[in-house]
């Protein structure tokens, strides 16, 4: 699992990403840092608007045309990603770091067969000729559990079921043996039984391909199942980061704690869910202090005024909160009160 002696594969430091919109500049990501080690699965957890997807996309500079990396450093192996030329970057994209997305129907090009789309990558990165690439593509499809790959390869995305599409997408992402797979909510659009299939598949493939995974999700169940380590994001910032057991057993940020207690669970009978009050503010209107202060059970004036730093509160456990003690003291009361 976590091996601190090893050199990180990917290192992101103090990442700031901004977007230009009609209403003004949105600071979508504010000083996010993390490291990804070989073979591990890092989950980035957060609700919509937390900046989790943008953070992941930034690692291969895949932002929409109105967004840019304002500040920060991204180191992949020995490459400074931000100073790479477009050509050099393209050699990393798809080959070293590849991605799968939430909605496989829209992420696959509807007018090309899935074979075309896999072969394209193989030809590009591995210099294969058509026949070789096709053979390899069929192998890949078989590997991701698509039955009758010889036939399926010539089908268009709309001819496949949702699960099969996501498998095809995974085959495409894995075609060049990447070191890192960025999976952006890969199972959100799927049914639970299919989700289970895909999650199993990803675990198996991770072992086989020896790759690291950045798993972006809002589903804590999936996080618990898949990740070795997690960072929790809110308002474009990391609010808490730790290994997975720590995060779930000893959450040290009110948001992480609130989130965990607000989901209905099948393994427990709770009368009532904890609900975090309010809504995620418009990205232009976050409080100036702690971003979570206007929804936090434990916030006081200090929180509103001043944003706490992400502190390492114990080894490899980081949290961004002024009032961890107070939270620990009062969280039971809060739960009681909610009830």
């Amino acid at each position, binding site marked *: 699992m976590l091996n601190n002696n090893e050199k990180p594969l990917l290192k992101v430091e103090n990442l700031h990403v901004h977007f230009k919109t009609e209403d003004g500049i949105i600071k979508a990501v504010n000083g996010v840092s993390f490291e990804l080690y070989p073979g591990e699965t890092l989950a980035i957890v957060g609700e919509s608007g937390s900046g989790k997807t943008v953070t992941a996309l930034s690692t291969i500079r895949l932002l929409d045309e109105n967004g840019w990396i304002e500040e920060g450093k991204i180191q992949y192996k020995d490459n400074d990603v931000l100073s790479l030329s477009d050509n050099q970057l393209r050699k990393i994209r798809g080959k070293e770091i590849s991605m799968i997305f939430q909605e496989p129907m829209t992420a696959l090009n509807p007018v090309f067969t899935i074979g075309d789309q896999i072969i394209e990558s193989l030809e590009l990165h591995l210099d294969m000729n058509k026949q070789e690439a096709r053979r390899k593509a069929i192998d890949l499809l078989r590997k991701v559990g698509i039955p009758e790959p010889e036939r399926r390869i010539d089908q268009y995305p709309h001819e496949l079921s949702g699960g099969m599409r996501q498998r095809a997408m995974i085959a495409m992402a894995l075609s060049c043996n990447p070191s890192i797979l960025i999976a952006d909510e890969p199972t959100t659009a799927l049914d*639970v*039984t299919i*989700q289970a299939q895909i999650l199993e598949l990803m675990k198996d493939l991770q072992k086989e391909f020896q790759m690291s995974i950045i798993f972006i999700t809002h589903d804590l169940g999936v996080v*618990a199942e898949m990740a070795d380590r997690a960072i929790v994001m809110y308002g474009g910032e990391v609010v808490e980061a730790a290994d997975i*057991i720590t995060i779930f057993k000893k959450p040290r940020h009110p948001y992480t704690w609130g*989130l965990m207690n607000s989901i209905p669970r099948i393994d427990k009978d709770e009368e009532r869910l904890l609900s*975090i009050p309010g*809504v995620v503010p418009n990205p232009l209107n976050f409080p100036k202090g702690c971003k979570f202060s206007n929804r936090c059970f434990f916030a006081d004036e200090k929180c509103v005024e001043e944003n706490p730093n992400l502190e390492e509160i114990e080894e490899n456990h980081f949290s961004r909160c002024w009032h961890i003690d107070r939270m620990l003291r009062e969280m039971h009361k809060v739960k009681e009160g909610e009830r």
Partner: protein
Amino acid sequence: MMPENEKVILEVEHLKKYFPVRAGVFKRVVAQVQAVDDISFKVHEGETLGLVGESGCGKSTTGMTILRLYEPTFGRIILEEEDTTPWFMTTTEAKRYIKIMYADRFEKMKQEFGSLDEVIKNLNKEIDKKYAEIYFEQGETGIRQDMMKDLTEKRRYFRKNAQVIFQDPYSSLNPRLRIIEIIGEGMKVNKMGTNQEIRDRVAHLMEIVGLSKDYIYRYPHQFSGGQRQRIGIARALAVNPKLIISDEAVSALDVSIQSQIINLLVDLKNEYGLTFVFIAHDLAVVKHISDKIAVMYLGKIAELTLKKELFDNPLHPYTVSLMSAIPIPDPEVKKKRVVLEGDVPSPLNPPSGCRFHPRCPVAKEICSKEEPSLNEISDNHYVSCFFPGEFKI
């Protein structure tokens, strides 16, 4: 919690909804999508029935058909002791329905039992008894007259008493109407008070669902997704319906907002004794809110029982697999998981026999040949499986 003598609000009998598939040069019907295929259930007053299942299992179609946003292909939908089925049919369809559902049946029973009293005695539903009496006195026309008179009034009665909360809070609210109009519309149509009274009630409802009453003159686009869902709930509550059908009402919301809405629904239910049909794909959510759960698979009910019973003692292999597939947000629980093979088959061409058999870990020969019926295995626990309880983790 659910004594048998309690009042039944909604009863669905043998409901089917098929969608024709047309193809070819003349657009002939070449197949039927059996979206809902012969399901029956009851919902008692103050009770919440959860309908759960994966996409394509027919749970939403069931809801829409009960609401008569789709016309049922077959079956009877009884709302509070009234057969509402023919209310939305064309005259010819209604005639046909009344003949099959009542006249033919009574006629057959009459031959079987001989005397009219015997027939009535052998009928166990109030509504059947009522129409049997009418039938033997006034014939088929009598039933028809009783059912088809004041249709406009009946339709309005139905629309008022069966309310819906939709999944997508963005598209289900008319963007051109103000909140007061959205929530108050139903009250106005049903003449539930003066304008002032309606306004006051709208303000009150807004507070109930957790919105400031200052927002009464705003438009839907000025609200966030969660707030819009609250508006949708207030709208449904406004006319004091007997039944609320909630179709994936929390699925599109963020986790923290989802919990707020779930809590709101639970509170409302407890406080006002609302009767819900709660449709969702997320078993955890359904579990949280329902008293009784029906697990659906490919247009059929696989298992139907009380919530606790379902989770303590799941009997259908599909229920078991579904539960095991749900990831538990606890890294220390390394549970054993059954990963079902393959995809959900298309309802256009469902498997023979038990519809679950191609994916079932314990399927035997009979499963592919015969279709199991929904049997009451133990008290109030209905399972549609030849080998209930055989599959366990």
